[in-house]
């Protein structure tokens, strides 16, 4: 199972929640599968989806799902201690761990080799970390949404990308409609 198949499965589960989505093909796939004003697409700035999601969760009470990638979490590993030490029980970090930099041609990341992001997240102090198979992501995410506890999900999947168009929405439009959805 590849990332786009996970996104397709979880789309009905996340569509009514605030979602911050990782740069590149992940955002393109989510945008093509189920564009929503509650989706904040990152068009640049690799690594900050989890930080933006945490800031958003700390600032307001609605549930926030940050959909991140293994490569992006590796480039901003400092995010995990910050998440662990600033409790936001309305925050779910879903790391789609395909063991590669998918957007740039599936080059392997260290998460696909010896490094376990699950173990790293636990060592950073995140106390509710769940690693699952791609096939179980929907169920695990539903359970996390039903609970009121900050959750980090590491979904292990295969690498591969669906061919989707580039997002041409203006960034200020993405941001504006997202903020309106936050307030709604």
């Amino acid at each position: 199972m590849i990332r786009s198949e996970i996104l397709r499965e979880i789309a009905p589960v996340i569509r009514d929640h605030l979602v911050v989505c990782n740069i590149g093909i992940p955002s393109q796939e989510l945008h093509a599968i189920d564009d929503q004003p509650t989706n904040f697409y990152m068009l640049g700035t690799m690594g900050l989806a989890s930080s933006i999601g945490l800031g958003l969760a700390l600032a307001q009470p609605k549930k926030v799902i940050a959909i991140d990638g293994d490569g992006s979490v590796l480039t901003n590993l400092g995010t995990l201690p910050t998440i662990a030490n600033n409790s936001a029980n309305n925050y779910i970090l879903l790391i789609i761990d395909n063991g590669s930099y998918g957007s740039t041609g599936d080059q392997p990341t260290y998460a696909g080799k010896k490094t376990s992001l699950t173990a790293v997240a636990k060592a950073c102090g995140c106390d509710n970390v769940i690693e699952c198979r791609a096939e179980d992501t929907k169920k695990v995410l539903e359970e996390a949404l039903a609970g009121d506890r900050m959750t980090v999900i590491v979904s292990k999947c295969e690498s591969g990308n669906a061919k989707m168009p580039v997002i041409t929405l203006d960034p200020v439009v993405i941001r504006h409609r997202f903020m309106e959805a936050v307030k709604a």
Partner: protein
Amino acid sequence: MSIDSRIVNDLVANGISFVTTVPCKQLADVIDEVDRRPEIMHVPSNKEDEGMGLCAGAFMGGKRPAIIMQNTAIGVTINTLATLTQFYRMPLPMLISYRGELREPVACQVEMAVHTKALLAQLNIPTYHFHWQKDVEELDNILKYTFMCSKPVAILTDANFWGGYGDQ
């Protein structure tokens, strides 16, 4: 009133309720003051680009954010300033210690100081330089300006502004 209380009073008066910080010796007291204020959620970050991500999220969640950092962090955050803060047009006051200026005791700090204003100018970031204590009188206007235009704005505060480095 101490300069630190004065600065944090201005932040609070301008509705800033989310502040992220990465320490600098020069900023220690103002960070302590931020941490003490019940009106401000203080979330220390591990790197300044991460901090700007937190600020972007907090802003979209309805809070007015600010970041407190050292000028060396300009080198860390250029990509984030351009592709997140500016591209999505978000306001971000940046209270920055301007290390490597007059009265600086550490030579290495000068290496980024000589690039600081040039980099900010290249990024079209409105930049203010506090050198005398009375320059703080401009802070309130700078904060209002930042949220009026929804841009990142730099407030460089040098050693002279902070009263030097004690006995160094």
